[in-house]
């Protein structure tokens, strides 16, 4: 059970207050700061709405990626999909494998880059959707 209104609606109201009522009163550095603050509210609002799905997708994708990684004996070396590690734990496991050279070349590197691209795009939808829009325009 949650309380009403949800975090994203409450934060959007704060952002609108900063934009429409605070910003016009300010000049220079403080005015810029009010724009940054309103933007930060919108980032957190999108995060509040999308965080659960993001982390679940990270857990699934990381499990799959690490599960594909084969050791010298040809056996999977790491987590397999369905285990109960958190996304952060799997992320740290991935970082350790990168540092050991498991993703230096070949198919594993391609798979890693493809996963990183989809994950960073999911995080950009929260943090900087305008960046993704610019990329789309650039690719056209």
């Amino acid at each position: 059970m949650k309380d009403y209104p949800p975090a994203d609606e409450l934060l959007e109201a704060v952002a609108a207050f900063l934009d429409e009522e605070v910003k016009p009163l300010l000049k220079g550095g403080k005015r810029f700061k009010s724009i940054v603050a309103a933007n930060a509210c919108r980032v957190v609002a999108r995060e509040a709405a999308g965080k659960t799905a993001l982390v679940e997708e990270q857990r699934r994708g990381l499990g799959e990626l690490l599960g594909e990684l084969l050791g010298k004996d040809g056996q999977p070396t790491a987590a397999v999909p369905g285990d109960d590690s958190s996304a952060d734990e799997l992320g740290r496991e991935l970082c350790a494998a990168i540092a050991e050279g498991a993703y230096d070349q070949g198919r594993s590197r391609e798979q890693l880059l493809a996963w990183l691209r989809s994950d960073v795009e999911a995080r950009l939808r929260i943090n900087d959707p305008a960046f993704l829009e610019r990329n789309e325009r650039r690719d056209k």
Partner: protein
Amino acid sequence: MERDLEKSQAALQEFIRRQQAGQAAGADALRVGELTRLSGGASCEVYGFDLHAGDGTTRAMVLRADRPGKDFSASRADEYAVLREAEQAGVTVPHAHWLGSADDGLGVPFMVMDFVPGLALGQRLLRDDAYASTREALPAQLAGELARLHAAAPGHRLPGATPAGDDPRRFALAAVKQWTAAAATLHTDYPRPALDLAARWLKLNAPSVQEPVLVHGDFRIGNIMFDERGLTAVLDWELSHLGDPAEDLGWLCVRSWRFGRDHPAVGGLCTRDRLLELYREAGGRAVSADQLRYWEIFGNWKWAVICLLQAASARAGSRPDVELAAIGRRVPAVEWELVDLLDREQSQ
């Protein structure tokens, strides 16, 4: 903490009088006008003021003072030494007059230099019609400034440790190591596989440097002063060091310095190939497209680390700062660019 501007003004006047005593007649009559805050980065505060001489003349000056508790940039003394060195090499810089220590009245190290008219705002440069001629002139001017800087015979005093040994890759490896160490101070609660992959690639692909040069270390749109005609000064020398000349060229290509004008690659102003051509024409060394790409990848990675350090520093003050904290959320865009650049590397 907010600086007491009136106290600082009086202390600065005392300091300049001491510096001028015995050198200029009427040093006792020198007056420092009101300090006006011009800008402030994560590591320093910048104020403008008028220096009124005893003979009635007035000169516009700039005070650059450390922020208490700054960490990853060079000391103000190193920046001062490098600035003098760059001026001698013919680089367009404001003349640095005096260097002050923490004991000289302001409580932090600082330096005083000439005020240079112009703007340093990347957004204005890239979007405002008033700067169309500036945008035309800048590529050749930027290449020329770097060629002159890199031709400087580095003097006896250079910031930071020069990497020891005779491995020709040691300058790139030392740069990667330095920023890996900086990144290691960050929260491990936030794994960043894209940044770790970049660090690994940079370590494995470090290029050789036969002749290291004095590198600016933060040469980019945003640190260049300009007016309606072109470049008026190269600013912010606090990250300069001995290294690969291609490091400055690659940093100039980092996407964040295009301020949303994503094409062409060099600050939204010219292509990478054109930059290398202009640099060569201005007397710079031959730099290959591979070398340039290495340092562009390095630059994006280093920028991501700097953003995270700045975000972490948001909590250092008496109250958390939203502007610094929000910088952390710019990192995903830099990660995207890194993944894209690394992906292109693989397909070669």
